[in-house]
């Protein structure tokens, strides 16, 4: 019979609150990157989702993602609809030393931030009503199934042996691919001089990145689901990878553009946090240095390619979360060691080359499903209500036109 451990419960309560703070942090991170006439609408995308997905997760999201499997490893059943049967006692299946309700709440915070990440792709031209409908559909039809595939003990990717400690595929790859599809679907912003971004408040973005970094300790170290050595490992690998990616990004931009970019430090740190997410509890601190270095180089290159392309993924969600998530998942297959986590597997460098193949299968499966389902959802939502605002509204700015408010009076 599972017993509640007070230390584990205290850490997961704290971690859940830390991950919750990431979504307002993301709102500031994205809000600083857009033009001043769209800052409120961009913040609202994240903040509204905090309310929206909190409710859908309680009503049906949790049972679809983590409920008892329906037989094929694809989706959970409706046994826990509206949290029926989910109580303050531990689950027999998940995190058996903390209340089942607490595990549900911890996972809720992951479900909240994932669709919020996508909002960066169609910033400055998305109709709010369409965004709300998209977020409900996406969190139900894309996030919940993928979470079930990877994290349910009966999920088909879990059974296959895919390692994803805290959501490299479930959160970041899925949202990054969805962002690319959304950017292609909605089209480029109008009236921008190439290349098409204007960060209106870099300090706001750096503050957001700092809050994300802070909250990520709950995201990754909390995913140990206990107050133990594995949580400490994940804490250290998370901080190390973020730090290494930040200084790597700054160094590259310094050499490339001639100045050490402040914005680059913030975005580089986020890229490092993304890449270490699937690996945090499976690799050593030394390996996390290499992951930070690698993702700093790869994501910087991806962001440069995006600038040269016709794809207006406004806030580089694909370059950071899509590419960074895939890189982290594959790096886990290379660098994982069962010496860190006996529940995991060894990777390529520890004598198990097959783990790289398994990780690649996970990346391809999650990427293909997210791309296809996101495209279908966007198509249907666009039939219900146009996804893109009218041209004059885009020129005016979404804050005033969509929300009747402005962020700054002068």
């Amino acid at each position, binding site marked *: 019979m599972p017993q509640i451990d007070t230390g584990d419960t205290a850490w997961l309560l704290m971690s859940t609150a830390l991950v919750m703070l990431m979504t307002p942090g993301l709102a500031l991170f994205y809000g600083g990157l857009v*033009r*001043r*006439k769209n800052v409120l609408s961009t913040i609202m995308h994240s903040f509204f989702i905090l309310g929206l997905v909190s*409710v*859908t997760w309680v*009503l*049906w999201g949790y049972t679809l993602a983590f409920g008892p499997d329906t037989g094929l490893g694809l989706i959970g059943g409706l046994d826990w*609809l*509206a949290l*029926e049967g989910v109580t303050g006692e531990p689950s027999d299946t998940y995190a058996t030393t903390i209340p089942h309700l607490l595990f549900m709440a911890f996972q809720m915070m992951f479900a909240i931030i994932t669709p919020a990440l996508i909002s960066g792709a169609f910033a400055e031209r998305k*109709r*709010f*009503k369409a965004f*709300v*409908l998209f977020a*409900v559909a996406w969190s139900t039809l894309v996030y919940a199934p993928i979470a079930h595939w990877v994290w349910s003990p009966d999920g088909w990717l879990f059974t296959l042996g895919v390692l994803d400690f805290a959501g490299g595929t479930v959160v970041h790859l899925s949202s990054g691919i969805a962002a690319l599809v959304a950017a292609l679907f909605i089209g480029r912003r109008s*009236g*921008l*001089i*190439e*290349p*098409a*971004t*204007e*960060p*209106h408040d870099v300090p706001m973005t750096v503050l957001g990145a700092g809050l994300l970094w802070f909250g990520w300790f709950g995201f990754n170290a909390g995913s140990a689901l206990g107050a133990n050595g594995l949580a400490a490992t994940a804490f250290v690998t998370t901080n190390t990878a973020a730090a290494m990616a930040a200084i790597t990004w700054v160094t590259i*931009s310094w050499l490339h*553009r001639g*100045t050490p*970019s402040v*914005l*680059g430090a913030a*975005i580089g740190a986020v890229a490092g946090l993304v890449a270490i997410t699937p690996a945090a509890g499976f690799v050593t601190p030394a390996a996390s240095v290499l992951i930070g270095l690698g993702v700093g180089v790869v994501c*910087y290159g991806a*962001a440069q390619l995006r*600038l040269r392309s016709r794809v207006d993924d406004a806030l*580089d969600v694909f370059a950071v979360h899509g590419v960074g998530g895939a890189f982290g998942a594959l790096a886990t297959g290379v660098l994982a060691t069962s010496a860190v986590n006996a529940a995991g597997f060894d990777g390529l460098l520890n004598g198990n080359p097959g783990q790289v193949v398994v990780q690649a299968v996970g990346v391809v499966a999650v990427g293909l499903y997210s791309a296809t389902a996101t495209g279908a959802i966007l198509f249907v939502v666009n039939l*219900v*209500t146009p996804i893109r*605002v*009218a041209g*004059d*509204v885009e*020129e*005016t*700015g979404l804050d*005033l*036109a*969509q929300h*009747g408010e*402005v962020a*700054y009076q*002068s």
Partner: protein
Amino acid sequence: MVIAALASFGILIVAWILAPDEGSRRPQASTVPTREPVPATT
């Protein structure tokens, strides 16, 4: 209780679909301060 909870969210979804958007209260562009875009720094 479960049915009532689901129904309450369903009412909100219907309300969102029916709610007005910018078409009914479009502001004047001249009321919004604007700046010229500059290249990204990343």
